[in-house]
């Protein structure tokens, strides 16, 4: 599954891991995260993430 990287701080969202600190269970695709979700490291929004390929 696709990983997404925060362009501000480098945090990588990995769907296999999810984001437990924000109650996102493993398996959730990046696209399906709510619009209110922010980078757990630096706090920027989804629009500052880009796909890792």
């Amino acid at each position, binding site marked *: 599954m696709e990983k997404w990287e925060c*362009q501000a701080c480098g945090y990588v969202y990995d769907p296999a891991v999810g984001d437990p600190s924000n109650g996102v269970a493993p398996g959730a695709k990046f696209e399906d995260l709510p619009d209110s979700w*922010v980078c757990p490291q*630096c*706090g920027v929004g989804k629009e500052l993430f*880009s796909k890792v*390929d």
Partner: protein
Amino acid sequence: MKIVIVGNGMAGTLAAKTVRELDQEAGIEVFGEEKYAYYPRPNLIEFLAGRLPYEKLFAFPEIWSTRQRIGLHFGERVARIRPDERIVETGTGGIFPYDALLLASGARAAVPPLTGSGLKGVFVLRTLDDALAILDRLRTHARVAVLGGGLLGLEIARAMRDRGAEVSVVEIFDRLLPRQLDPAAAGILKHQIEKTGISVRLGAVSREILGAAEVRGIRFESGDEVEADLVVIAAGVKPELALAKDAGLTVERGIVVDDSLRTSRPEIFAAGDAAEHRGRVYGIIPASFEQARAAAHNMLGMDMPYSGTVPSNTLKVAGLYVTSAGEVNPEARGHEVLVRSVPETGLYKKIVLKEGRLVGAIWMGTKKGASEIGRFVALKKDVEIRKGDLLEDTFDFAEMS
């Protein structure tokens, strides 16, 4: 255990959050000169461009909830440290004792000593108040000049262009991003920026910002002028060192810290844009983040060494990915250089080899292969037999890893 934190930017906020996660009992007081709760500064660009509404600027509001029992003092400056008594004094006369103190005072925008830099209509962009003031001016004044063609200057220019302003970027160097790019790549980047309607003026040394009460333009050493009624200076930052100096801490370009983020006084720590570690002042979020996390542990007596941050090779500039690693402008002889360039799309790939080993690369306009090429350069990988294919978009890095 009483912890006082000066600054509620990335470093101060993250340190407060980490301390609370590690220790439910520690007293935490956070002072921020800005009157706002934490917002990541990259959001200011999105806000300026009109892509992010005001309410969405702020992050991690849950940290400040009463449940976390963190003492919040936003809009309150720490005026002085009295290190021998282990107390801080605030601008309003408050006195707070500490067992450990974290200086997360960050950096301010640097303003070069240029006549006219104090005129109405001249701004910097570091804080939310700066962004609000720029947007306020932009409502009635839409001829913008950005002084400084570095990363921040280019982002500001693009954001203001997205708002419909007429924008020119003024850069002292004779090309863009001279450290990351070579002349050809810089030319392509310039062209890509110009395609969006931004004008780029290179090799332009500003002599004076013109205007009587309000700004009306910029005059260059060459005698040329550019008209502008809104000027944003993006000429780098300078760490905020006043408190540290006054307290007698060792200060160079930043507040000097060791691998435990301790300053020259063991109970005072520093992290983020204000700190200098092993001779480096990073000025980037990943370093602020790692330093703050380590400082939080060490303040609580949990040993967490910090040995430095490796900045990412990849930037996003004016919507283009730019990866730059190693020697991109080799000066010595004995290097082999291979280039593939598609100027119309902004694609530019260059590899620099020495005796068949990869010692430098530029990868612009694509992210495919970018992290791999960066890693290969770090490893000085021998690519002699595949060098002919490496620059092709179809090249599969997996088979070489």
